[in-house]
């Protein structure tokens, strides 16, 4: 049997509430810049939570990514974010779209989402209910099918390998990268564009507002609203955007002399089966710990080699439980716990896009030799302080050359995904 391929990351793209494009985003995460703003649309509709994290896309970027005709009918923010991030990752990796006559059979995409084109869907439903189904035209299906985002991306880039959309709630983005890693590892493709996206707006966020899982205590101070690991964390801030990563076999990357950001050395996805303490909305801690432990052992490293963790850490009451799970899964004490951070203090919880945006931030940290600051947790949750020495939860940018980062995401439905990234060394 042919040996498994090593898999490296050669391209990054991002569309996040605190920065669109890798340069702006890198600057934002290093400086602890929040992308959370007051959201008048949520206020107008009487939401409890009236702050959100929405990415901004310049007209110039839209014109590069979409034709005039596409822009005229595009009412899916998730597809916009996904395509913008994907095209940045692809060109940043030094890759070009396939030529006109033939697709690139060696490249595909796993690009996840929770739902697609909810604003387009709403408009279509209104037309149908007014007995105007014919007014839907030709663009409703492509934007509202769950796989719309991967279909758009594949069309832009001419991808001829597997093209599909995965969906596992807030674990979606981390899962898509795991799927791409396994696909390349076993020789099914040379390159995969992995990532995920999430729509913006009241129709995607309303259900969370109704569940009272979003904070409603910071409508007057948006940038303080998202408080992972804080004693005053009071729920997450809804966000949106997309993250995209080009995964590639080491052989392919070396052969075309590509820039290598880091290596993916392992990962695992599982579910708590909504048994034990697990439910539709709460994670089964046994499954979380098992997911992390299996990712680490599959990567062929010892748990103590994990130096930095990028957590899921949404700013709810579950943050302390997550820290306890990491601690047990990695067998670490209070003092020797890895550095840990949460991007959500700056971006809010970008739902199905969170995992991929946070993986982009994770890869930037590993390749750039830094740990980005946690914001809004100066008042550290005492339960967390009892578990982990506060020095392990940096509040300022930390320069750190390190080898191994673990990233995990946990989603509704009691699903988990964990990835292990390693600094790249050839040999």
């Amino acid at each position, binding site marked *: 049997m042919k040996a498994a391929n090593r898999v490296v990351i050669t391209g990054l793209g991002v569309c996040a509430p605190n920065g669109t494009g890798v340069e702006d985003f890198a600057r934002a995460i290093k400086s602890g810049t929040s992308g959370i703003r007051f959201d008048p649309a949520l206020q107008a509709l009487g939401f409890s939570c009236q702050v959100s994290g929405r990415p901004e896309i310049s007209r110039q970027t839209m014109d590069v990514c979409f034709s005039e*005709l596409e822009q005229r009918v595009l009412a899916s923010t998730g597809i916009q974010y996904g395509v913008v991030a994907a095209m940045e990752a692809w060109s940043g990796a030094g890759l070009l779209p396939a030529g006109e006559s033939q697709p690139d059979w060696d490249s595909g995409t796993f690009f996840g989402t929770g739902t697609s084109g909810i604003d387009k869907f709403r408009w279509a439903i209104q037309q149908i209910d007014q007995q105007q189904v*014919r*007014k839907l035209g030709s663009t409703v299906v492509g934007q509202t099918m769950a796989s719309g985002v991967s279909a758009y991306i594949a069309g832009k880039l001419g991808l001829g390998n597997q093209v599909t959309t995965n969906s596992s709630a807030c674990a979606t983005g981390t899962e898509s990268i795991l799927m791409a890693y396994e696909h390349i590892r076993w020789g099914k493709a040379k390159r995969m564009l992995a990532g995920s996206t999430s729509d913006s707006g009241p129709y995607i966020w309303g259900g969370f507002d109704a569940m009272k899982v979003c904070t409603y205590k910071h409508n007057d101070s948006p940038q303080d609203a998202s408080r992972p690991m804080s004693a005053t964390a009071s729920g997450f801030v809804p966000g949106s955007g997309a993250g995209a990563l080009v995964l590639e076999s080491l052989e392919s990357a070396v052969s075309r002399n590509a820039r290598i950001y880091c290596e993916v050395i392992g990962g695992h996805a599982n579910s708590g089966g909504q048994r034990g303490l697990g439910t539709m909305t709460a994670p089964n801690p046994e499954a979380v710990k098992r997911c992390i432990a299996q990712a680490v052992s599959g990567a062929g490293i010892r748990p103590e080699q994990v130096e930095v963790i990028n957590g899921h850490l949404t700013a709810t009451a579950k943050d302390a439980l997550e820290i306890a799970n990491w601690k047990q899964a990695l067998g670490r004490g209070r003092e020797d716990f890895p550095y840990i951070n949460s991007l959500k203090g700056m971006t809010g919880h970008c739902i199905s896009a969170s995992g991929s945006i946070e993986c982009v931030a994770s890869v930037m940290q590993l390749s750039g030799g830094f740990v980005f600051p946690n914001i809004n947790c100066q008042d550290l949750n005492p339960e967390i302080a009892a578990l982990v020495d506060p020095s392990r939860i940096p509040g300022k940018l930390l320069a750190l050359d390190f080898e191994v980062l673990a990233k995990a995401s946990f989603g509704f439905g009691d699903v988990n995904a964990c990835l292990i990234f390693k600094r790249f060394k050839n040999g």
Partner: protein
Amino acid sequence: MDRLLIIGELKAIVSPYTEERSKLEELSEDTDFLKDLKINSANLVDIVLDIEEKFGIEVDNDSMAKMLTVRATVEVVAQKLSGDAGQ
């Protein structure tokens, strides 16, 4: 409405749907939307919706099926416009 005026409006309507700029410039009654302008067949329904909006008419399914060339489209539009005028 004069056929030439209708053709002028059609040219503007189909413009965003085609990349065949020179064929568009030469647009005449003989122009075929799919063969000459290489318009994606899925977009034909969008073009009909744009025509309906522009001329304030409603195109039935049977007429829509005929609208593959400029000539056929002009005929449908002219007929609907005169029909409306008679109401």
